[in-house]
């Protein structure tokens, strides 16, 4: 009578690498299995490199305590910052400058509009007004560029 052996589950390369990794991580193995095929051996080598390069010991109590104390200090600092009046914040000041600049532009436009339009239709003596308009337009352009620059500045 022929004895039949129970079927051994066939281990795939995925299983082999996972088993190897488990044993390495548990500290049960410190070398690459010699029977492995070349590709698997290469992957096992990478597993070993990871295990060797990164510490596996847990955080010690001293470090944990220090980090927690640092964290509490950070929270206090952050809450101090957030409890400052809004007008003291940088963002508020930036917005204030932008708003001021926008008002300045509007005032400038309001003031130069009569000069820009008064030349239209005039036949005589317009040369002086034209050059004045160009200067005013240049100033207006400069203000716009300045506002844009202020807005982009961090």
């Amino acid at each position, binding site marked *: 009578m022929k004895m039949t052996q129970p079927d051994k589950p066939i281990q795939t390369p*995925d299983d082999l690498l996972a088993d190897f990794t488990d044993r390495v991580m548990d500290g049960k193995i410190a070398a690459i299995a010699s029977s492995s095929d070349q590709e698997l051996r290469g992957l096992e080598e990478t597993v070993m490199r990871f295990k060797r390069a990164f510490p596996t010991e*847990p955080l010690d109590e001293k470090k944990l305590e220090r*980090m927690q104390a640092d964290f*509490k200090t950070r929270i206090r600092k952050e809450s101090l910052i957030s409890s400052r009046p809004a007008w003291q914040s940088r963002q508020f000041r930036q917005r204030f400058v932008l708003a001021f600049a926008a008002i300045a532009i509007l005032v400038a436009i309001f003031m130069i509009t009569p000069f820009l339009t008064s030349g239209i239709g005039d036949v005589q003596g317009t040369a002086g007004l034209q050059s004045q308009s160009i200067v005013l337009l240049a100033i207006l352009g400069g203000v716009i560029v300045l506002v844009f620059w202020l807005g982009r500045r961090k």
Partner: protein
Amino acid sequence: MENISLPVPSAENDEHLIQQFKDGKSDAFNALYRRHLPSVYKRVRYVVPEIDVEDVTQEVFMAALKSLPSFRGEAQFGTWLRTLTNHKVAEYYRKRNRKQEAPQVPLFEALGRTEGNPSKIMEERIILRNALQDLPDQYREVILLRFAEGLQFNEVAKLTGQNLEATKSLFRRAMSALRNHLDK
């Protein structure tokens, strides 16, 4: 140095602490911090240069503290914190890339500042960390869960909602991709 073995954070305990925090007991967050600091710290140590590990870890918890009131518990706190950690690490690299004009710290100086003399292990850590950063997210995640957080493959499978075979297969592909990066 005395090593401590903290109780493994369980979802039930986390939920209880989160509820306490939402009820106004700010000490509950200290307990959450203590429970989850080791795993967050380990994960960050695998992906961020040694010199910035503590800072990025604290940033993760600051973000958690700010967002916790709006945490609705759709995912476990640990999973939520893991996502937050990944975001903070990505933000760290974005900021670092933006500051390219700043003088780079020489490699050996950076090593010397952290753990005494520069060593081969530290160099190896930098090489592996860079290779890990270049991997697709799902590859990097399975490697971090197994190595950095020390989860068993069945735990990784449960967490990622895959079966065990698929998880092992993903791990092998991830290691293969990593090896290709290292060979370049």
